[in-house]
């Protein structure tokens, strides 16, 4: 604690990259529609993702109603059921979760959290949104073509996806593939922006090891997506050629409804490798941003530094790397060489270690904390429960021999909904309640937020926890109707009705959230710049909501990590990242 240490801390490091000239919008259209401001693009992304997500939510009701009351609802037939399953899955995983985390939160938070004026390529950023929007419109348009959307299952496995006997094999599958190709084109433009912005546009003092974990999570997810999406891209192009030009990348010689086709020599398993080379990292492309956001929510609302920050960063990187070599655990019973089972089981279960360390560190952050039960905190805690629950059931499915009886049953459905459906969605809600004041300048209603939390958290747990047991029983997934089956007791049908009723209730309860979201725009309590008294940089903008360019005349200078909560000797229980150091402070 000598004064000698102060100057070297105070002197901000020199700027490595010159401040940028932004394109300033001149009209309403260029400001709010064809906008190059990452914050506006973020809201466009999130708005589109949530809109299409509501469609996917309604589709899940169709699925649940059929499973609970088979044959009782006139408009649900086998085609509608399988189309609903397919569209629900694809929309939720790709068009909703991926888009809202990377396009929505990524765009809004990365520049603000690293102290940049905007994304590095604002024009490309704008294009990425518009291509994403077109991809979404193409997908939804399949409802208006003869035969409707594809009902091939969200994994689109050939040969079945492009043959008759599958709903939407006329146009639906083509539109799905075209839409995915467009989505990946759009995503690549956005993803390059996120990666380059994090690497190149950080403000002075914002070292990599001073970045909030939200940025780390989104950054790692964006890198992974840039590596994984090409697998899906080529799979889609090749399948599209098989469907339209009669190539045989994935099509062996086969007979379709008694008629021999011209296909010869292709491999259906090749498609599965390409699909899951994307599909498995995709789980973490959704999960890593959620991990990052939840770290920040817990730290802010528990008024305590995140425990084991370095470990958290390395765990994100380790999970990202390992997740690229585990795709085969989706294919244990696909007919691939069974010796791969050993490799994929080991790598899959190895991921459990860094993942568990993250969970421990979140929980240890609560130890000796000062916990405020705000709505964002409740959602973060709800995430921990559903994530731990869904994470450990992943150990069943990753451990190759245990997967054998459980694969293709409702256990799998329950597992991935808990871990990559409910858990990330709880984080999304928590994040919206948390950052809404920065985006709008107003608070959301806490009372409504808490009602929303309790219904969503307990309801979702009640939907998916029991469903695991139907899988253990042996109930297969992707059955439009169970029919008369000796090993399924009548009580399973009763449980399906209970699950459906809860699912409908939880779905409708989301209207509380939307009411709160829109009502608070006008009637919410004024938030001020930093209502949660948070330390990270996005809360330190000169204006709220931040103006174009984020920071006014001068970019901020960062002196410490974003988790300086309850630092001994500090006058308040937090130290903003851009506040000059205290006397003698040595901060990470």
């Amino acid at each position, binding site marked *: 604690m000598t004064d000698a240490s102060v100057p070297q801390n105070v002197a901000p490091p020199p700027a490595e990259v010159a401040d940028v000239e932004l394109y300033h919008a001149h009209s309403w259209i260029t400001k709010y529609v064809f906008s190059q401001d990452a914050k506006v693009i973020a809201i466009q992304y999130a708005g589109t993702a949530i809109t299409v997500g509501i469609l996917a939510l309604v589709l899940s009701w169709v699925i649940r109603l059929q499973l609970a009351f088979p044959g009782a609802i006139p408009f649900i037939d086998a085609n509608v059921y399988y189309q609903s399953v397919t569209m629900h899955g694809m929309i939720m995983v790709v068009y909703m979760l991926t888009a809202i985390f990377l396009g929505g939160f990524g765009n809004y938070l990365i520049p603000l959290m690293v102290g940049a004026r905007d994304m590095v390529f604002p024009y490309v950023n704008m294009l990425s949104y518009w291509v994403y929007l077109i991809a979404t419109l193409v997908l939804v348009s399949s409802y208006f073509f003869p035969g409707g959307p594809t009902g091939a299952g969200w994994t689109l496995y050939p040969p079945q996806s492009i043959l008759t006997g599958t709903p939407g094999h006329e146009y639906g599958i083509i539109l799905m593939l075209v839409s995915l190709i467009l989505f990946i084109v759009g995503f690549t433009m956005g993803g390059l922006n996120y990666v380059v912005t994090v690497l190149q546009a950080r403000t002075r003092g914002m070292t990599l090891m001073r970045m909030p974990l939200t940025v780390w999570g989104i950054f790692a997810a964006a890198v992974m997506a840039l590596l994984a999406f090409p697998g899906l891209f080529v799979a889609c192009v090749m399948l599209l050629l098989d469907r339209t030009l009669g190539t045989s990348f994935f099509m062996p010689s086969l007979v379709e409804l008694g008629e021999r086709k011209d296909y010869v020599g292709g491999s259906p398993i090749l498609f599965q490798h390409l699909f899951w080379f994307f599909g498995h990292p995709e789980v973490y492309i959704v999960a890593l941003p959620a991990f990052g956001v939840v770290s920040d929510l817990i730290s802010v609302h528990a008024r305590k530094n995140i425990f084991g920050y370095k470990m958290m960063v390395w765990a994100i990187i380790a999970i990202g790397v390992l997740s690229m070599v585990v795709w085969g655990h989706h294919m244990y019973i696909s007919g691939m060489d069974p010796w791969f089972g050993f490799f994929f089981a080991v790598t899959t279960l190895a991921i*459990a270690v860094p993942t568990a360390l993250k969970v421990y560190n979140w929980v240890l952050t609560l130890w*000796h904390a000062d916990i405020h*039960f705000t709505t964002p905190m*409740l959602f973060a805690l709800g995430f921990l*429960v559903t994530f731990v*629950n869904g994470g450990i059931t992943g150990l*069943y499915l990753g451990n190759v021999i245990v997967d054998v009886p459980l694969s293709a049953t409702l256990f799998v459905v329950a597992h991935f909904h808990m871990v990559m459906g409910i858990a990330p969605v709880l984080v999304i809600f928590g994040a919206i309640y948390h950052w809404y004041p920065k985006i709008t300048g107003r608070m959301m209603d806490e009372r409504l937020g808490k009602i929303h939390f309790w219904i969503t958290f307990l309801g979702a747990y009640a939907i998916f926890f029991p469903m695991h*047991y139907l899988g253990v029983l*042996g109930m297969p997934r992707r059955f439009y109707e169970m029919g008369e089956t000796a090993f399924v007791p009548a009580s399973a049908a009763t449980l399906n009705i209970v699950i459906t009723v809860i699912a409908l209730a939880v779905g409708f309860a989301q209207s509380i959230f939307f009411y709160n979201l829109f009502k608070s725009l006008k009637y919410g309590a004024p938030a001020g710049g930093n209502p949660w008294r948070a330390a990270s940089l996005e809360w330190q903008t000169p204006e709220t909501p931040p103006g174009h360019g984020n920071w006014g005349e001068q970019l901020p200078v960062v002196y410490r990590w974003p988790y300086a909560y309850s630092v001994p000797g500090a006058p308040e229980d937090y130290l903003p990242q851009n506040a000059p150091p205290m006397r003698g402070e040595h901060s990470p």
Partner: protein
Amino acid sequence: MSIAIAMVLVVVGSILFHVLSPWRATPIASNWGFIDDTMGLTFLVTGAGFVAVILFMAYCLYRFRHVPGRRAAYEPENQKLEAWLGIVTTIAVIILLAPGLLVWGQFITVPKDAMVIEAVGVQWSWSFRLPGADNQLGSSDVRYIDTTNSMGLSPADPKGQDDLLIASSELHLPIGKPVKVLLRSIDVLHDFYVPEIRAKMDLVPGVVTYFWFTPTKIGEYEILCAAYCGTGHPQMRGKMVIESEADFETWRVAQQTFEQSRKSDASRDKRASAQ
């Protein structure tokens, strides 16, 4: 505060549900009890982890909730604690993984004396083939499929002439003898799934896949398709009958060979054209 109580209730409710729920694995009817044992071990280890983490969290939420004047501790890291947690987790993962890999080794090693049969999937039904007197299955190819040869057996292969074709979706097997099931699809992906035997495997057009098991319990079991194969997927049902060696033999000799089926089809065709 209520969240701490809710978490305790979630843990207690989950354990009670696990213990009391009537939905459990079907009674096993094959040699794969090891799979059930590995799953039981997994329930124990992961259940203990879940309970420990959530209850600890609930305690923290109760103990360190905000009260006026509370200030959090400042403890950026504790490398020793993190290392310990990492080691304990690694050991737990090894406890789960090691037995799993050993059982997988057995799962993919077919006993030499296993009886070979073939299951063929087509939208949306099952058919089966058993070797004839020569104990060998003849070759097959999609090219040979026609109205009198729905499984696509090679008409020229002498090994296939005595193969027994079972087109009724009902497969009989003798109890206590290991069976290697060869799996073939002539259109899309299917999956041979009988919940009671625990084992399952995809049928992939273009390749022949396999798995093995030993039936251990006399009875009738449903064969489902577990790989989505189009709108008729749930209707793709078969029946597996496990019976004594003698009953199986009676059933077996009553089946038609490939040669017989071709002849009877040919004579039927002749009669039809004469009329």
